[in-house]
């Protein structure tokens, strides 16, 4: 049971890296980026193809970060002409982009599911809490915790972070201060997308890379941000950790309802606290 809790943290931190980008982009830009899952899948494929050595793993991370940067900037530019149009137009655009990107990935990497190897030294297992546990997942916990702290510090303690928070609260206000909205938007989009592709590489050794994984992780990420509250870093972290535990401990405790614990938790949160655990704007009014 303890090892399930530990594993819940590994999955939770991975989900945090995945979901925090989605949450920030939505919170700041009001753009629901449905291509977020495709970005993750892109990273996962890179990890699967290049992984297996430290050079390959780090190379995949670097390439994924570059790809995420390019993807984020591209998405930001693509949604720019739709700035004055509805949220839905932007969401539809990203849905279209997601479909295109996923198909291009399949054309490039094939229909067959691929596995991604953890870098040497981390591909084994160690005994933790009296159970055998894959070493690589411990690394995920460490990286996730560090990233969470870093994002939290940046958003909460720096000038840039203040700007980010101010943009979440009142975009028009910030633009009257003479700060180029498009620049902020491009930067946030880029950071969010880089986090998604990096999460893909990091998640590869756990999730593999396969057609359809993009939709699976997109829905997970949406559930995380809805539970945690949109636009809140702390919400994304807590939401991700809660989902991580539900997905592991919940399945151990309620094996017969394994398919439903996730959405059950979502429904519960929506009933009790429609704005999410840390959100300010209600998902349901």
């Amino acid at each position, binding site marked *: 049971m303890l090892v399930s809790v530990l594993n819940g943290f590994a999955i939770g931190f991975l989900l945090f890296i995945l979901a925090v980008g989605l949450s920030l982009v*939505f919170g700041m830009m*009001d753009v*629901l980026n449905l291509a977020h899952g495709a970005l993750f899948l892109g990273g996962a494929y890179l990890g699967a193809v290049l992984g297996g050595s430290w050079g390959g793993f780090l190379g995949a991370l670097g390439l994924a970060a570059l790809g995420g940067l390019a993807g984020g900037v591209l998405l930001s530019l693509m949604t720019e*002409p*739709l700035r004055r*149009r*509805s*949220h*839905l*137009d932007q*969401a*539809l*655009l990203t*849905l*279209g*982009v*997601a*479909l*295109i*990107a*996923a*198909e*291009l990935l*399949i*054309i490039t990497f094939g229909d067959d599911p691929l596995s991604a190897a953890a870098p040497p030294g981390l591909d084994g297992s160690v005994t933790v809490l009296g159970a055998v546990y894959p070493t690589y997942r411990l690394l995920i916990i460490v990286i996730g915790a560090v990233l969470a702290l870093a994002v939290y510090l940046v958003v909460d303690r720096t000038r840039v972070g203040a700007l980010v928070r101010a943009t979440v609260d009142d975009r028009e206000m910030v633009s009257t201060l003479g700060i180029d909205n498009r620049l902020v938007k491009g930067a946030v989009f880029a950071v969010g997308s880089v986090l998604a592709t990096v999460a893909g590489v990091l998640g590869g050794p756990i999730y593999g890379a396969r057609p359809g994984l993009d*939709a699976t992780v997109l*829905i997970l990420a*949406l*559930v995380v941000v*809805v539970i945690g509250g949109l636009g809140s870093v702390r919400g994304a972290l807590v939401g991700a950790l809660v989902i991580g535990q539900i997905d592991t401990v919940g399945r151990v405790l309620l094996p017969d309802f394994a*398919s*439903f614990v996730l*959405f059950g938790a*979502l*429904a519960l949160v*929506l*009933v009790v606290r*429609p704005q999410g655990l840390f959100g300010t704007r*209600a*998902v*349901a*009014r």
Partner: protein
Amino acid sequence: MTAVEPSVVPATPAARRGYGRWVAIAVLVVLAAAPLFLAPFATSTLSRVLVFALFAVSLDLLVGVTGLPSLGHAAYFGSGAYAAGWTSIHVTAEAPVPLLVGAGVGALAAASTGWITARSAGVFFLMLTLAIGELVGQVANTWESVTGGANGLTGVPAVRIAGQPLANAGFTHWYVLLVAALGFALVWTVARSPFGDALRGIRDNEPRMRALGYSTSLYKYAVFVLAGGVAGMAGSLLVAQQRLVSTADVGFLISSLMLLAVVIGGAGSLWGACLGAALVVVVRDALGPTLDGHGPLVLGIVFVAVVYLLPRGAAGLLGRTR
């Protein structure tokens, strides 16, 4: 309703109204005559277009008329399809029983999930319906004793009318056409009613409608249930036509395809939704095999192109933001 200008059905001069009537009759006649001249495979493709046209119309009631973009509408379409199929197998295939059961279960499924979605709007609504759609898909896959799970619900008998089964593609087509036309008429009537005016008011400015004393959540809940019922009706037609239901019929891809159909046609225009559905089905079924399985690629490109090139079509979806 003087406060809200009905914008979906603009007031047209009498001359154009007469013109529209003849077009409608001509379309119906052509659709009704089609089985006499088309081979069975082409006829069943045409029937499938009608099934999805009705589905798209029910979605348009949410998306175009009320401004609630759903990415999970296939949940109610699928619920209706499973219910109609199960009834045909285990109870009776005598029309209109499967149809009524399909519509009823579609509405019931919408009623039991709508309380979550009716309080939300915009992109939040999109997210919630997506999650609900996934959940219903999971149920369809797991509840094997009723749905057949991943094997699908098969062995559905043909719809019977007065004891006679609809033995071939042509008769089935006429049944589908009749029901689809009735369903279309229902949605069209609702969209033109004062209730429809109130829905458009909610789409254009919900706070104002609330200030005017409307219980907007109640209106949204009602239209959600109604749209679920019509989608269930379309689901029962799907069973009548393809005689099986599979988990893919409840899936995310169908929901997004239909949302695309509505957007292509210009949200709010019920005829447009039908044309959009026709385009999507024909692209999927006729062009699909020649695209080497990369249909989603074409779909994605169409999505992107429509958003940029048909702003009028897409603009009505949410009205002004916030």
